[in-house]
C-alpha cells in the first residue's frame, strides 16, 4: 500500500491504513518530539498525541501540501502547545521559554582565537550541546536548523515575530558554538594530560 492509497483508506477509517501511515512516519515524528522535549516518556506521549490529532483531522487533508509536511507541522504544533502548557514547577530549572527573553544571550568573547569546529564535532557533541540550550533557543534552533522550518513558519508556530525568530536562532548558534568549543578544549586538555602521563611512565 503506498502512502496516497493509505491516506485515502485512512480517511474511510481503515485500521490497516492508519497503521501504514503510522509506520511510515513514526520515526521522524518521535525524533522531533524527543529532541524538543529531551525525555523519552514525554516524547512518547507527544508522538501519540500528534498521530491522534492527525487521524482525527485526516478527513480534512486535501493534498494541498505534501502529507509529510502537514504531519510535521501538526507534530510541531502539538509539542509547542504542550511546552506552553507546562507549569512553572516543571520548567523553572530551565530559563524562560519566552522567545522575547533576551536576558540570557551569550556574550561574544574577545581575545584568544576561537577553535574551529568544522571537522571536529560530531552528532553526539551537538546533541548534548542542544540539550544545554535554554528552551526558547533550543526550540528555534531545532525548528530551523534541524527540522528545516523557515523563520516565517517558526514565527507562526511560536507566536513571535520573524525578527525574534532570527535573533533567537543567532543566539542559539552562538551559544552552541561556545558549548562546542568548550567541549573541544576539554577534550584537547584531556588528551594532553593523557599524553603527559604516558610519556612520563
Amino acid at each position, binding site marked *: 500500500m503506498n502512502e496516497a492509497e493509505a491516506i485515502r483508506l485512512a480517511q474511510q477509517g481503515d485500521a490497516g491504513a492508519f497503521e501504514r501511515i503510522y509506520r511510515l512516519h*513514526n520515526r521522524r515524528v518521535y525524533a522531533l518530539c524527543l529532541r524538543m522535549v529531551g525525555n523519552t516518556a514525554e516524547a512518547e506521549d507527544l508522538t501519540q498525541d500528534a498521530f491522534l490529532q492527525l487521524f*482525527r483531522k485526516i478527513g480534512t487533508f486535501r493534498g494541498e501540501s505534501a502529507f509529510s509536511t502537514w504531519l510535521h507541522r501538526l507534530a510541531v504544533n502539538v509539542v509547542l502547545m504542550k511546552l506552553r502548557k507546562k507549569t512553572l514547577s516543571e520548567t523553572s530549572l530551565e530559563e524562560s521559554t519566552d522567545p522575547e527573553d533576551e536576558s540570557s544571550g551569550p556574550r561574544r568573547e574577545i581575545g584568544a582565537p576561537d577553535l574551529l569546529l568544522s571537522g571536529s*564535532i560530531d552528532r553526539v557533541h551537538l546533541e548534548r550541546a542542544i540539550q544545554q540550550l535554554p528552551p526558547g533557543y533550543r526550540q528555534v534552533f531545532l525548528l530551523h536548523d534541524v527540522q528545516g522550518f523557515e523563520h516565517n513558519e517558526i514565527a507562526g508556530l511560536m507566536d513571535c515575530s520573524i525578527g525574534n525568530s532570527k535573533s533567537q536562532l*543567532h543566539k542559539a548558534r552562538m551559544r552552541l558554538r561556545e558549548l562546542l568549543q568548550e567541549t573541544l578544549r576539554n577534550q584537547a586538555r584531556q588528551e594532553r594530560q593523557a599524553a603527559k602521563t604516558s610519556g612520563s611512565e
Partner: protein
Amino acid sequence: MQCEQFEQILEQQDDGALPKPALAHLEACETCRALTADFGAIHDMALELGAEEIAPPERVWISLRNQLEAEGLIHDEQAAPRSASHASRGWWAVFQRPAIAGAFLGLALAAAATVSYLSNSPQTALDSQLTLQQEASSVPSADSVFKEEVLTVGIDSIPELQRQDTAVTNSIRRNLQLVDNLIAICEKSVREQPDNQMAREYLYGAYQQKAELLATAMNRSMTGGLQ
C-alpha cells in the same frame, strides 16, 4: 564594517547570500571567517540530525490504536466476524446510537473546551478553542446535547442491558449511580464556588467517566458480555 555590524547582518540574513560589504569584511576578518565557518559546521551537523530517525517503542502504537478504537475512528476490515452480530460489536457500536454518540462527543468537547478555557495561558486557550471550533462545527452545541442526553441517560436507556440480570449489569448500574452522585456533588461545588478550577476539572472528569461507563455498558449489551 565592524565585526558587530557583520554579526547583525549574519543574524538577519537567514542563510541567504551575504551583501558585498559583508563579504568584503569576511575576506579581511579572520575572526568573522571563523564564526561563519563554525555556524556552517553547526548547520551541516544539524541537517544530519534532522535526517536521523529514531523508532519509538511499540507501546506507542498499541496505546494509539486503543485510543483510535475507543474514539471509533478506525475499524478493522480484516477481522473475521464470528457471528452475524459482529458488525455491531465493540466501541463502534456506541456510535450507532446517535444520541449516545452525540452526547459522548459533546461531552468530550465540553470537557476539553472548559479545561482549555481555564488554562493559564490565554494563547493556549485561544489555540485550543480555535481547534475545537473547527472540529465542532458539524455537531450540535455541546451544552445542549449534554443537557439533553448525558445527564438524563442511565442504564434504563439501554434496554438490552436491562434484560440481563447479571453481576456485570449490577456492577454497571451501581457505578453509574455512583458517578451520578459525584456529578451532583461536583455541580453543587461549582455552583457554590464558580472560581474553583479544581472543582470544575473534577466535574468534567465525572462527566467523562459517565460517558465512558455508558459506552462500556452499550458495548457489553451488544456483545452480551461475550465476544
